[in-house]
């Protein structure tokens, strides 16, 4: 069994909590976000014959009043940079966050997760944005906390980018 510390970061209300609530297990309540600023959850996965336990540090969403505590990323094996596909600004926030993470803990694996992929009508992220990310070498995925589409893939993608053991 391999444990990995994974952080989930993103702007406020991008759906991190929904992703965690539906696809990971947690023993802590939501109020940790507003008190401690982070809530620990766990995502168990099997990759081949190897069991992975991703310890998810679900950091409180960032907005104009609150910045994420990048110190929480210390020791992380990777992170999910979550973006709300229906709000373009959240991508900018994600980029900003990523930069600060690099400044704080260096280059560690991450995956950009565009949440709310089921809301195609309200989608605000243009394709050129994806291209730009690809151009920067940032892996990205679309996912839906509502349907579950893309969620496991996101974690698997992140795992694939992390050194094993």
């Amino acid at each position: 069994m391999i444990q990995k510390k994974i952080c989930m970061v993103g702007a406020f209300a991008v759906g991190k909590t929904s992703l965690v609530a539906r696809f990971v297990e947690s023993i802590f309540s939501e109020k940790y976000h507003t008190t401690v600023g982070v809530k620990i959850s766990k995502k168990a996965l099997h990759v081949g014959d190897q069991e992975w336990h991703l310890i998810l540090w679900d950091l409180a969403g960032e907005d104009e009043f609150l910045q994420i505590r990048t110190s929480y990323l210390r020791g992380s094996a990777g992170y999910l940079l979550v973006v709300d596909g229906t709000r373009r600004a959240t991508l900018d926030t994600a980029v900003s966050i990523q930069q600060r993470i690099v400044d704080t803990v260096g280059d560690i694996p991450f995956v950009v997760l565009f949440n709310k992929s089921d809301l195609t009508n309200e989608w605000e992220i243009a394709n050129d944005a994806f291209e730009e990310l690809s151009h920067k070498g940032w892996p990205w995925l679309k996912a839906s906390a509502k349907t579950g589409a893309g969620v496991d893939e996101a974690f698997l993608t992140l795992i694939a980018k992390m050194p094993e053991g």
Partner: protein
Amino acid sequence: MSDTPTNGLPDTARPPQSPNGDGWGELRSLLVGPEQTQLDQLQARLDALRVYPEDVSQVLAEAIHLRSNQDKQLTNALLPSVEEALRASVQRNPRVLVDTLFPMMGPAIRKAITTALRSMLDSLNRSLEMSLSLRGLKWRWEALRTGKPFAEVVLLHILSYRVEQVFLIHKETGLLLQHVIAESVPGQDGEMISGMLTAIQDFMRDSFGGTEGESLDTVEYGDRTLWIEQGPQAILAGVVRGNAPRELKTVFQEALESMHFEMREAMGSFQGDASPFTAIRHHLEACLQEHFKAEETRQSARGVWLISAALLLALGVWGVSLIRAHQAHIQAHQRWTACLSTLREQPGTVVLTVEKRHGAYFLSGLLDPLVQEPLALPEVARMCAGVDVSRQWQTYYALHPTFVAERARRALDPPDTVALRLDDHGVLHATGMAPYQWILEAQKLARVIPGITQLQTEQLVAVDHPEQILARARATLTPPGTVTLRLDNGVLYGSGEAPHRWLVEARKRASTIPGIKWWREEQLVDTTLKALTVFKDEVEKYSLRFVKGTVRPDSGQETVPAHMSTAVRQLVDAANAVHYSVQIEVLGHTDKTGSVEENLRLAQGRAEYVIATLRNQGLTDIKLTAVGAGWRQPLQGEMTEEDRALNRRTSLKVILTDTLEEKG
């Protein structure tokens, strides 16, 4: 030169000859040759830079000893190798190890089983104690009230402290390296808790500042405390319930140090695979310490038992005292009942009211004057001993026959000669003798004596009645028929004739007869004395005449002495018969002629002559006295010689004396 070295150095110590035969070289060899050789050897060893086994073997034992005294690092360092060696030994030939361990296995197994059984027994005892005791019920109520399992509530109360969980957390990543949980403690996901704990530490550090070295080391929540020990690469966090001693921190620290020592490399290169840390799990398990309030519990239980025992004892003492008080009360009541019963049985005593006031008894009643204080009577006093009785008596007259008779006796005060008897009808019968006046007064008094209806005196003799007195006198004196008795105002008169003996007796006894004051006998004739007087007169008739101037009887007087003697004998015999003694004075007389002295001598001679004559006649047992009377008692005047002849004579005077009267 001689072949023998002259400087005394051995050949081996001789410095090598200089190839060129240089003198300086030879001199240097001679001076520092041996030291040079040693320096060369040292240089060779330094050049080789090798640790020789021989050198290590010299200090190995001492080094191991020294390090073992310092810390456990040597043990920890050797442990993997020893384990590996053991593993290899078992794989190669298990029998070697089995044979070695065999002597230890039996005792070890027994000890393990004993420990397990004792633990189970302790647990069972505790469970039973908790279940059955008052405290157990209280805790069950607490469990019901709080919704906690009973076992948890029990544990909360009996635990001094207990380390419930221990986490070994990788410091950099916050990932869980090892996690141990005490038995029966509900476990949460250790991985998430480790993460959250790390997050909280980061949060504290970010929020309140501080350097890297500063860290959270204690979090208290309710009765739980989270103790955090920081290591260079890992954190040891223990959840402690209760109040753990500070020494436990040392246990945590030592465990953390040991784990760092053993897993330093693994911690440094940790990438998420915690499986290698299973090997140091025992260090964490060693931290799962617990301490029960066993002693305190026992003491508490002992205290409860002591209090219970004291309460029971107090209750017992109170009960006993209550029982004793009750028994004392019953005994007091029984004593009082017996006392009262005895009191009521006493004649002349009537108990009217009985009350009990403040533990003391108060009674009122009636008491006959003849009864003394009834509680002072021995029988009552014995029954009423220890009973506090106040009483108030009023006088009354008991009609019990005993009391009526006694009351009559006291009121009438009869003489000793009177006996009183009360019959069933209240009639008092008096018998015996009593003064007439007493009888009259008793008849008056009897009417007012309570309980007496009548005084019967018919059988009572009035000792002071004249007729009675006279009758009594007759009965006492038994006078002969010739005697008449008469009573006049207490004086008893006797008249008539009576023998001298009766008179003597009557004189003695008359005055002793009740009712008779005096005895008078002037009118009584002593018949005995009357008879003796005849004989006396006969004797006193005899007179013997003498010749003038001589003591020789005159002529014609020869028969007189014989007759005189016979008369005297008859008198003496009669007198003796009535206990009279006879004394006769023989008087000698003369005429007036001659001198007085001659006449007195002559008269004395004539009297003695008669006495001698009477003695000769056999009257030797009579007192005869000669008295010379001279001429003073002439028989008749001496007018003539014949007259003178008649005066020259002797006469007899008889004196009779009652011998009994003299003795009496």
